[in-house]
């Protein structure tokens, strides 16, 4: 029998505020253990939570960017369970009255696009981080109380590729909004997968399984592919799928059952008595709406029409907003778009990671000036690569390096004629062979001329002059 796979994803993204969601502890990632804790996030008696305005603004940005309906009033609730990473004995979350509902995210696949509906987006606090030893577990509470948005999709995804692209798109929106790092490996972007199978053309959902503990985009795809196959085999053998939580083990390449007691799911939610209802005004929403950036897909299309870039090049440039901005700043300083694009995608990205280009020592000013020197014919493309290395080492402006080191391209015909004269007389044998029909000797002669001028000769002019000379004296 053929089966259809039904996938819904729950994503948790840490919001990049300075302080935690309900207290003023810092959120920095690299603090030493249990350094950023206080009576509020540790749930000491008498302490009271106060909601961080920026955390709300960030969550709103995500909700508006994904076309959600913003709820004018939302309620924080206590989700009760006992676990060492949760010092209060409950997590402050949103339950029956979330911040936002009914959104949509458009994902772009090979040649089509697909709209994935969002069920809801709500705010909550993160828990501490556990490390498990031989006999004990060790808890670091710095993460407890860091603001999270939970983004819950409808079961609209049908395969591993769609799920991965959906995740990539969410991450891109979060990063374009500059509200989250979206780093799966460091845990600031986490994903739980709900997956079930049903016979093709059936309209009832099968029993779903939840997969947790997936910490890279690639693992999400692997986990889904494995789980699809496991459930298919199960159904083929006439067995029932057990509704359960499974963990992905990348090392083993399989999911395994977490086997938890069923009452663990009874969280006995109730409204958080220490926090008043969160009211969002229409003005706040429209103010947020007016600050939204141009997102990845729209930017890509604009780059293709405005700068005549290929789909492939534009896609690479817009993968990070900071990189796309870097490209445009360089173009605005006079660099030819295609040339700037080529330089960024080859030389610049060879030196720096995609997300680090914008804050690197190589400014758009450096790159634009370098490219303008090539465009004006002041230096050759080959010399430009040497100058590029020198900018990275010395931080000087390209024109200064060119001036100080005398790297200007030689385009003066009279000056080049002299060098050509010299090489032609020096390489008598080669010239003879060329004239006898071994045309491939030509490039070797050009190479010799370039060498004599330390690469500064304008190769186009050298070519013309040399060709003229060889043919003229041939007759």
């Amino acid at each position: 029998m053929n089966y259809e796979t039904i996938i819904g994803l729950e994503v948790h993204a840490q919001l990049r505020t300075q302080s935690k969601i309900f207290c003023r502890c810092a959120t920095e990632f690299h603090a030493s253990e249990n350094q950023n804790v206080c009576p509020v996030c540790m749930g000491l008696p008498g302490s009271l939570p106060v909601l961080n305005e920026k955390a709300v603004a960030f969550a709103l940005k995500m909700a508006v960017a994904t076309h959600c309906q913003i709820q004018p009033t939302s309620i924080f609730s206590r989700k009760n369970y006992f676990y060492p990473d949760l010092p209060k004995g409950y997590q402050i979350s949103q339950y029956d009255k979330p911040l936002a509902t009914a959104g949509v995210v458009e994902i772009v696949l090979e040649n089509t696009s697909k709209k994935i509906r969002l069920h809801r987006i709500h705010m909550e606090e993160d828990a501490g981080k556990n490390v498990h030893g031989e006999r004990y577990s060790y808890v670091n509470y710095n993460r407890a109380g860091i603001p999270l948005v939970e983004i819950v999709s409808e079961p609209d995804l049908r395969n591993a590729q769609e799920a991965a692209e959906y995740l990539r798109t969410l991450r891109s929106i979060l990063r374009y909004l500059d509200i989250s790092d979206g780093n799966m490996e460091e845990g600031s972007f986490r994903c739980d997968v709900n997956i079930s199978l049903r016979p093709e053309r059936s309209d009832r959902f099968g029993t779903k399984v939840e997969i947790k503990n997936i910490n890279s985009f690639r693992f999400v795809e692997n986990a889904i592919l494995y789980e699809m196959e496991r459930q298919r085999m199960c159904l083929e053998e006439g067995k029932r799928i057990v509704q359960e939580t499974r963990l992905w083990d990348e090392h083993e390449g399989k999911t395994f059952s977490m086997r938890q007691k069923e009452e663990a799911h009874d969280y006995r939610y109730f409204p958080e008595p220490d926090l008043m209802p969160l009211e969002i005004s229409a003005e706040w929403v429209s103010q947020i709406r007016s600050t939204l950036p141009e997102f990845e897909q729209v930017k890509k299309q604009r780059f293709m029409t405005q700068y005549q870039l290929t789909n492939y090049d534009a896609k690479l440039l817009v993968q990070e907003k900071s990189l796309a901005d870097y490209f445009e700043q360089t173009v605005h300083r006079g660099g030819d778009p295609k040339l700037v694009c080529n330089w960024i995608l080859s030389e610049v990205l060879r030196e720096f990671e995609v997300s680090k280009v914008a804050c690197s020592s190589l400014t758009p000013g450096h790159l634009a000036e370098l490219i303008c020197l090539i465009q004006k014919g002041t230096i050759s493309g080959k010399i430009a690569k040497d100058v590029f290395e020198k900018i990275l080492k010395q931080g000087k402006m390209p024109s200064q390096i060119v001036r100080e080191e005398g790297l200007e391209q030689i385009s003066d015909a009279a000056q080049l004629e002299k060098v050509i004269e010299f090489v032609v007389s020096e390489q008598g044998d080669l010239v003879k062979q060329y004239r006898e029909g071994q045309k491939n000797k030509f490039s070797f002669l050009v190479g010799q001329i370039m060498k004599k001028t330390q690469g500064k000769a304008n190769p186009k002019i050298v070519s013309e002059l040399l060709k003229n000379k060889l043919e003229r004296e041939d007759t």
Partner: protein
Amino acid sequence: MKISPQEVERLAKLAWLKLDPEEVKRYSQELSSILDYVETLNQLDTSQVSPTYHVVPQKSHLRKDEIGRSLSQEEFLSMVPAHEEGAVKVPKIIDIE
């Protein structure tokens, strides 16, 4: 409204409370009578009343995103039963992660 001894046991387990059989029996009776009392409210027609999430009609107070003083690591660790190299040490958690 009847709260059975089984339900009391389940709730006790969720709340990590240890109850002896005597207590289970007593709480079953007491909780039942409390809920019976609350049940009288159900005689009122509340179809036109919105749910009371809070008794004080106030909206949420928001604070600026500013870092304030935290407990020092030393102060915090002095309050926990056991710690090692800055981390809080707890019995090994086996079911998750």
